[in-house]
């Protein structure tokens, strides 16, 4: 088990109902994709927010990563929908 800080943005944040949380991660959660699937088991709100896994973007310590990226020594992991700035 290890501790990570999660941050959420846009409708991911709205559906989960909070902008950040600190959680304990089981050792079986190795990649960004594993993390998304793990979070979906935490609550109905998490499941609703992350229902369509393929549209969820992940940033580890403020850099974009693919879903197969190992979490490594990540301190802050962000989950959010496709970006719409500019």
């Amino acid at each position, binding site marked *: 088990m290890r501790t990570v800080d999660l*941050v959420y*943005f*846009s*409708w991911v*944040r709205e559906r989960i109902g909070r902008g950040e949380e600190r959680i304990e991660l089981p050792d079986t959660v190795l990649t960004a994709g594993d993390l998304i699937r793990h979070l979906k088991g935490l609550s109905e709100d998490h499941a609703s927010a992350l229902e369509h896994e393929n549209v969820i973007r992940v*940033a580890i310590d*403020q*850099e*974009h990563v693919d879903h197969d990226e190992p979490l490594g020594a990540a301190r802050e992991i*962000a989950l*959010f*929908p*496709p*970006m*719409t*700035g*500019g």
Partner: protein
Amino acid sequence: MDADAARDKPAFPAASIPLTVRVQAESFDTAAEIAALSHGRSDIGALVSFSGLCRDEGGALAALELEHYPGMAEAEIRRICLDAITRFGLQGATAIHRYGKIAPGAPIVLVVTASAHRKAAFDGANFIMDFLKTGAPFWKKEHRVDGARGDWVSAKDADDSACARWLR
């Protein structure tokens, strides 16, 4: 890296090229930013600016609200600008992106590029905007005049294709 570190870090491999990146709630002075990039220089032949403004969507939109990921937003824009400086040999670049509530007619984003020649300045500004739209962590929510609950703006496939053209 956090936003302050990104701001102070020298811009390798373009350490001497002026680069300004800001993420801020307040508006900005497009004119002053363009002037700042060219002031006192006589090696610049071409300056291109792009301003993205909030449209009122035929009067239906009361405001856009922009959410952002503090720290990463600036770091990501900085990465994109440094790519553009290297790739197109720019002589300077400025990128400013606002967050918070923005009224119709008000500016959201400004990109300014400077180069010896026109093509590089145009391409650089386009490249920065293409990658900023798909890679900088900002999300737009619409507030409608009729008071209806606003929707998050959907990402466009066209924005991804616009990026893909630079990989050809």
